[in-house]
């Protein structure tokens, strides 16, 4: 095959090109021709097609995501906002923290182990590219029904992949989620998040400036893996009848990535890097065009210098390859030598593949012949924008009218007791230890809290005890009932989880998992969820610093529940003050904070006992969330509460069971006068938490709640080895433990 050079393209305007196979629409192809004023070469077509895919260009979502930048709350913590590899926030004492959540959903369905592993690898490189040392990962996961045979294939593979990669990198896994629902059967969600820490002056950006600076590609050799993965894999709905559409999956090499991390941190430390970008989706196409687009000039790349694993790769394939464990750095000429030396020290292959020019074009050459000559912004930042039609689905009213309040309730204390055991043992409410015990949570020696605590917490300075906390949450059932409220509830829950550990919520990242944007109903869910999240972030003062959108999560015509996953980052001045979940001291008083209304729509109880989804999700009261968080943080700082646990799915009883089992202590409880025990235990009203208060602190604590106007109800005492609800029932901890802990191993192991 002859090389399709720029010259050749100009001379052969009529040549047929496979734009449709590469996922481009007719008008998009026409626009490329207009931009270039000729037909694109094969290499250019490859670049535009991957970079203009949904996954890379956010073409369906960006008109909605704009709100995150427009409705910015007052918050001076934000150092780098949306648009970079990850956002950066100031956490004090000269430290900055970067964090982000991303999806690797589709690859993980095809090849669970490698899909999930490379998901961790990708998010870690994003964090590294900001200049930070990665210090922890989290993994919000969604699978199909727990008893479905395919879940037995997908879940163990995903978990082994996340563990296999993250453990080998030496990153503690400090949190995440595991949710089962039939709607994810053909489309599991594998989201992965990472936190990194640096000093303010170490922040690095993805831009290529300074004519004459060298472009260095370093890390793994480039192979034929994942070619076209971005455009084909991430933008197409699965269709079982077309297995040929499944491109080669990518295989990760965590050892290589560990070397890449250490090597990169060392070149940062010696200030050898003027700009840097990780290679993720769209590989070199993305890295070169984004670096050049964000920089001041142009870029020239000699593509034939790229070290290959497979010498038969064509230039188009090299540009599109998604081989893992690669980075691209911009380095001043006199620093190149030292840069290469450090790479050699870490056994990392590094090659100068080009340089920054004082022109305006991204130019790529193959053995001396020009195959790409494009304005980089047109590839990286000026892709298509769709205003997709959206409409509230016609079934939404009926769904909301199907009120969970009508469902049959337990008639006797015995029935209530039985339903509690049933809920606590249900796959979504059961202990996830079988999964999380496969993740290293101790490595790096800075883990203050990890799962099953409300949020993970990492000490970032051993002298001052400064720490950061991270929690991720999302409830697709709530979001299905009301996507606007559902997104806000996800934020509220993560915010509450961070505050429950004593950390002050600072900033937000998100991963928005939805069905096909070509379906107006899905697009409406997306629009509502982003609007809800943006509004709530503004109210709570926690800006969205970055995130990820994953669309086309559906099997055939059926979309997953809209699943916005929200991560909240918090800061704590002294990790000694952190509050764990466990009730550890007999005699301490148990207080319920917040108000309990009858709210069962989308609840765990309605799902487990009645297999029902309908009605409205719990009401959102963001001012109440803020007040609750303030109280929880004060209680932690001033030593007024020894344990705290937020209330979410499963309601009060779920939280009590978790706190009791974790501490190995029981609780004697009294249902407040005039309250229905069933509602008291199972309602999922938001804005609530339970705390255990030492008797000596009771007055101080209740005074504080009273003065600030937060309802605090004394509901019992830590005592014995059972959960005993006066006049209702008693369940031994041992019985609860078996119910809670046997489920997942029984289903999956």
């Amino acid at each position, binding site marked *: 095959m002859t090389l399709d050079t720029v010259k050749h393209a100009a001379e052969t305007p009529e040549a047929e090109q496979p734009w449709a196979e590469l996922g481009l629409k007719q008008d998009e192809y026409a626009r490329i021709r207009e931009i270039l004023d000729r037909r694109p070469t094969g290499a250019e077509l490859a670049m535009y097609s991957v970079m203009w895919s949904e996954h890379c260009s956010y073409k369906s979502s960006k008109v909605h995501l704009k709100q995150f930048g427009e409705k910015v709350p007052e918050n001076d913590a934000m150092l780098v906002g949306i648009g970079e590899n990850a956002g950066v926030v100031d956490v004090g004492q000269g430290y900055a923290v970067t964090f982000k959540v991303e999806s690797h959903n589709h690859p993980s369905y095809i*090849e669970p182990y*490698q899909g999930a592993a490379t998901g961790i690898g990708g998010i870690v490189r994003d964090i590294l590219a900001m200049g930070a040392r990665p210090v922890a990962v989290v993994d919000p996961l969604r699978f199909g029904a727990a008893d479905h045979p395919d879940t037995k294939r997908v879940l163990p593979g995903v978990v082994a992949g996340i563990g296999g990669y993250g453990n080998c990198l030496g990153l503690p896994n400090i949190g995440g989620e595991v949710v089962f629902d039939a709607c994810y059967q053909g489309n599991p969600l594998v989201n992965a998040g990472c936190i990194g820490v640096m000093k303010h002056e170490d922040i690095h950006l993805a831009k290529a400036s300074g004519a004459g600076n060298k472009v260095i590609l370093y890390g793994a050799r480039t*192979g034929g893996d994942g070619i076209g993965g971005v455009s084909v894999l991430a933008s197409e709905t699965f269709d079982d009848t077309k297995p040929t559409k499944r491109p*080669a999956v*990518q*295989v990760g*090499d965590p*050892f*290589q990535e560990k070397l890449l991390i250490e090597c990169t941190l060392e070149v940062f430390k010696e200030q050898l890097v003027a700009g840097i970008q990780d290679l993720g989706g769209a590989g070199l196409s993305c890295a070169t065009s984004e670096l050049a687009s964000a920089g001041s000039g142009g870029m020239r790349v000699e593509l034939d210098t790229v070290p290959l694993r497979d010498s038969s790769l064509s230039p188009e394939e090299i540009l599109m390859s998604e081989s893992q464990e690669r980075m691209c750095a911009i380095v001043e000429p006199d620093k190149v030598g030292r840069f290469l030396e450090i790479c050699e020290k870490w*056994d990392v292959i590094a090659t100068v593949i080009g340089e920054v020019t004082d022109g305006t074009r991204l130019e790529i050459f193959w053995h001396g012949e020009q195959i790409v000559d494009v304005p980089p912004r047109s590839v990286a930042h000026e892709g298509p924008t769709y205003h997709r039609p959206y409409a509230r689905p016609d079934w939404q009213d009926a769904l909301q009218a199907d009120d969970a309040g009508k469902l049959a309730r337990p008639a006797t204390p015995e029935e209530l007791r039985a339903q509690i055991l049933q809920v606590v043992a249900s796959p979504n409410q059961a202990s996830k230890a079988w999964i999380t015990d496969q993740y290293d949570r101790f490595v790096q020696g800075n883990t203050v809290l990890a799962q099953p605590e409300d949020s993970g917490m990492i000490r970032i300075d051993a002298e001052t005890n400064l720490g950061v906390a991270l929690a991720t949450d999302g409830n697709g059932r709530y979001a299905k009932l009301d996507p606007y409220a559902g997104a806000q509830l996800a934020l509220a829950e993560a915010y509450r989880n961070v505050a429950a550990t004593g950390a002050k919520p600072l900033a937000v990242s998100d991963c928005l998992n939805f069905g096909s944007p070509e379906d107006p109903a899905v697009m409406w869910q997306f629009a509502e969820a982003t609007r809800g999240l943006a509004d709530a972030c503004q109210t709570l003062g926690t800006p969205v610093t970055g995130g990820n959108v994953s669309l086309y999560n559906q099997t055939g015509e059926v979309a997953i529940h809209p699943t916005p996953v929200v991560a909240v980052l918090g800061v704590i001045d002294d990790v000694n003050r952190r509050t764990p979940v466990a009730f550890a001291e007999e005699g301490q008083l148990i207080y319920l904070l917040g108000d309990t209304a009858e709210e069962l729509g989308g609840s765990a109880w309605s799902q487990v006992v009645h297999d029902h989804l309908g009605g409205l999700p719990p009401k959102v009261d963001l001012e109440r969330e803020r007040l609750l968080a303030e109280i929880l943080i004060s209680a932690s700082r001033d030593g007024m509460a020894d344990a705290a646990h937020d209330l979410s799915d499963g309601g009060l009883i779920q939280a009590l069971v978790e706190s009791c089992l974790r501490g190995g202590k029981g609780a004697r409880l009294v249902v407040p006068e005039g309250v229905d025990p069933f509602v008291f235990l199972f309602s999922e009203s938001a804005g609530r938490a339970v705390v255990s208060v030492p008797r000596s602190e009771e007055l101080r604590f209740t005074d504080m709640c009273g003065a600030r106007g937060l309802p605090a109800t004394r509901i019992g005492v830590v005592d014995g080895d059972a959960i005993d609800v006066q006049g209702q029932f008693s369940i031994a901890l041992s019985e609860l433990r078996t119910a809670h802990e046997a489920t997942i191993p029984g289903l999956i192991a």
Partner: protein
Amino acid sequence: MARVVVDVMLKPEILDPQGQAVQRALPRLGFEGIADVRQGKRFELEVEGPADDAALARIREMAETFLANTVIEDFTVRVEAGS
């Protein structure tokens, strides 16, 4: 009883970090002249009854659906000589 061996190797286009790690270590250990190393899995199956065509067909199916992950791996099935 017959012994059937199923060899499972990563497809040639798939990255093989294990094989690469071995290959890179060899020169350091003083072993030169090895141009490439690939590492895979070997399963030894003891079959009750003869390793006839029917048995081999079943084992091939087993390899296809279970022993190998054909998204990334190839396999071969053979009766071990002398068994």
